[in-house]
């Protein structure tokens, strides 16, 4: 087997893996504040991508469309929080798992009917011409994915560390009750995390769509991989997702090459189950002590 082809597949896969990492990062944001994640996050990515496509079709230039798409994603994130998560968290139950699945299903059906069941191309001004870097072809489009992912993750991490609101976010993540006693509204912080998570999902959709096209089925294709990344990396480990995302992306691309494209999801799923079995807190996650 030609090593340059393997290298090519691994690099392209790893760059795609950054998108999974970004969606997984969205899980981490909400998990930090509320110990809950949106099981319908894939649908959120998908509807945000469709919405952004509509903005583009309305004649909005690419760079003006992005903030619009992010805003839409953030709003949808808030809808999920209000309708699916808040009540269950107040009742300290796990109803949110089912409710977020349900809301995702609703988004899916709405997208199917409003935008159609077919995959559609997503126009972008960034060229898809390859650049040669040490024997491997990388397109500007793929590079833009990497830049976009790392930029927004860096921005959010800076926001968490440098601003007062961000510190409130960290406080609620560390200890919800103590933060409430210090006058921080946990409910608002959870809302903030869902808003951010929605915006992150929207960006993931905007970045990946020019490469994969937009269609209702993109939701389930992305979500399983994002779950794998989040669980294998650990739901509380900041940049672990980036490493695991790239690794899984490369693995998946090689698996589909050697085993056939039908098996491309298998390695991620197997890793997910293994990680849960061996180390439920993830490779980079902190082990917790059970207390009674």
């Amino acid at each position, binding site marked *: 087997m030609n090593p340059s082809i393997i290298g090519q597949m691994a690099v392209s896969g790893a760059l795609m893996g950054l998108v999974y990492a970004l969606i997984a990062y969205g899980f981490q944001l909400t998990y930090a504040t509320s110990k*809950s*994640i949106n*099981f319908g996050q894939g649908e959120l990515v998908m509807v945000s991508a469709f919405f952004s496509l509509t903005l583009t079709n309305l004649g909005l230039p690419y760079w003006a469309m992005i903030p619009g798409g992010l805003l839409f994603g953030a709003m949808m994130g808030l809808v999920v929080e209000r*309708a699916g998560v*808040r*009540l269950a968290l*107040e009742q300290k139950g*796990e*109803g949110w*798992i*089912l*409710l977020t*699945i*349900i*809301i995702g*299903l*609703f988004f*899916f*059906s*709405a997208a*199917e*009917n409003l935008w159609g069941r077919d995959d559609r191309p997503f126009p972008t001004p960034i060229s898809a011409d390859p650049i040669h870097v040490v024997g491997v072809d990388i397109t500007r489009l793929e590079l833009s994915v990497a830049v976009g992912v790392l930029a927004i993750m860096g921005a959010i991490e800076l926001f968490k560390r440098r601003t007062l609101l961000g510190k409130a976010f960290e406080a609620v993540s560390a200890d919800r009750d103590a933060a409430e006693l210090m006058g921080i509204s946990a409910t608002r912080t959870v809302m903030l995390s869902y808003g951010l998570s929605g915006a992150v999902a929207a960006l993931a959709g905007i970045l990946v769509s020019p490469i994969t096209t937009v269609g209702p089925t993109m939701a*389930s294709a992305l979500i*399983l991989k994002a*779950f*794998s990344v989040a*669980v294998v990396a650990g739901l509380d480990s900041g940049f672990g997702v980036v490493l695991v995302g790239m690794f899984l992306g490369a693995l998946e691309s090689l698996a589909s090459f050697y085993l*056939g494209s*039908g*098996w491309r*999801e*298998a390695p991620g*799923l*197997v890793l*997910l*189950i*293994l990680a*849960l*079995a*061996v180390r*439920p807190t993830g490779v980079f996650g902190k082990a917790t*002590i*059970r207390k*009674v």
Partner: protein
Amino acid sequence: MKRILLLRGAELIVFALLATIPLLVVNPYALGLLTLLAIYGILLIGLDVTVGYLGQVNLAHVAFLGLGAYTAGLVVTKLGLGMAPALLAAMAVGLLLGGLLALPALRLEGPQFALATLSFAALSTTALNELEALTGGAQGLSLSRPPVFGHALTPPLFYWLCMALLAVVWMLMRNLLASQWGRAFEALRDSPIATDAMGVGTYRHKVAAFALGSGLGGLAGGLYAFNFQYLQPQSFVYDLMIILLLGVVLGGRKSLWGAFVGASVIVLLPNLLSNRLLFQVFSGLGFAMALAAGLRGLVKKTTRPFQALAPVVAMGLLVVGGFFVENTEDWRKAIFALMLFSVVVGLPEGLMGFLAIFLAKLFRVPHAPLPEPSDIEAILPPRAVDGAPLLVLEDLKRHFGGVKAVDGLSMTIKSGSIHGLIGPNGSGKSTVVNVISGLYPPSAGRVLLRGTPLPSGSLFRVSRSGVARTFQNLQLFGELTALENVMVALRGVYRSPLPLVLLGLARSEERQAQADALCLLGRVGLKDQALTRARDLTYGAQRFLEVARALARKPDLLILDEPAAGLAHPDVVQLIEIIKRVHKRGISILLIEHHMDVVSELCDVVTVLDGGKVIAEGPPDEVKRHPKVVEAYLGQPPQTDTPGEPSPQPA
């Protein structure tokens, strides 16, 4: 008696009606729907074990349906065997793979469990699609119903077979879920830690529950294969899983009737969606129900505004949508989503949960009468007290990273004593309890019970060795009644093997367990509240229930972890009485407590901890005056010779 007649009567009537239908109606379409009803009934009863009893979101059930269906199909087409072996194989595959999947999923709760099952489902779809040589891949797999005893299975015969299987599954599961097994499943859901600490064993029950539910999924899959006689991987995907969850949740969790109602809804859904008038009628009905229930909840202030309004909005969307949308079939997923959303938010008990309360009121069904309490002499025979060392801690250490929570603790608890363990907050008392009871393995040192080392790091095995504990932060099984909380922990009563339990031949030991548990409840003054759900008891009663539950382990050593924390004075007085009564049976007690009056009144010996080390030991009055103890509590050395009273701090 009336209760039994009503419940069994209803079951008999429904099944008799269902059995006679093919004789009266010859509409093949209706018969097909009824056959599906039976198949989905079995499937949902299986799903209810994990979703209802274990309380976990299980997204793999549809995979077991698919795997069972393909197994049956392959057994018939490739091996050329008959229907019975095919169905058995389908069920076995479900049992086996379910048990296997449960192993990694064992330690998982909530979202992680859901993710593990979701991945399994996705993997199995991939496998069915890609193993083309075996399954035919996306092309599908055709099979025909093999004859049974030389008779071709006509639709009515096949229907009767499915119904008969449903009836058998129904009876077996009813027996199982009403037994210790069902209680253990529910205990697991409410508190895995307490389940282990009560010697019930989370491990075997979680695997058993999951394997059992999946086995039923496999069996339903086998029937599914013979019903449709054509299989495709796409039939067993996420969409169907959502519908199955809709069935269980809408019908009502933890209820066989709920599964039946849920199955009926699933079977009727496609018709509901294809007929616009029917759809409008039903969505209107749903809207009216949501509105009535919401208003009632708001006026009575039993529900939060969101809980009352959200289902109204969702059902309202359904009604409005019904008028505007051209083809309801296109929006089926959104319709499922809205229905499911309304039920999860507004009717968490499901239709049957709602109906059960209503019917119980209508028919005034009394609870089955409880037996007379057993004699305490039989349950907790007085033990000989010899004063020999019972529990010995030898240089016990437990470090968390750099924190030395327990740092070289040696102490001896004598048989028949009440041994106090006190110390300021953070002195390591709770860690000691957690190490002895097996929650944490020790970092170094040994724990000996009557000279033999206790198993380290396993709540379950320590509990089985004769040490029982209560929890400072209550770990009751909230959804179970007080009586069931004690019954689930009872030691030495449940001896019948699983097959006898399934056949309902273990009722006598169930009565025995009830009688024993009632006696123990009487010991702590909760006999009159035996049928109250644990989470509805007052705080004091919950503390006493923890003691009664620990007594059900019939322990040699009872560890009480701050039993008086947060109790009002009258309750403290009662607690002291209870502990004295327990002590009279010859049970040795390790008492961790902050209330000095409780310690002084009860304890023979007190060990004082500070910074993970023993700073004093002796009779309570002596220890109280010990300068180091005073210093530990007050934070300064005594200035004068007059001994200061240590001031206990609230927990």
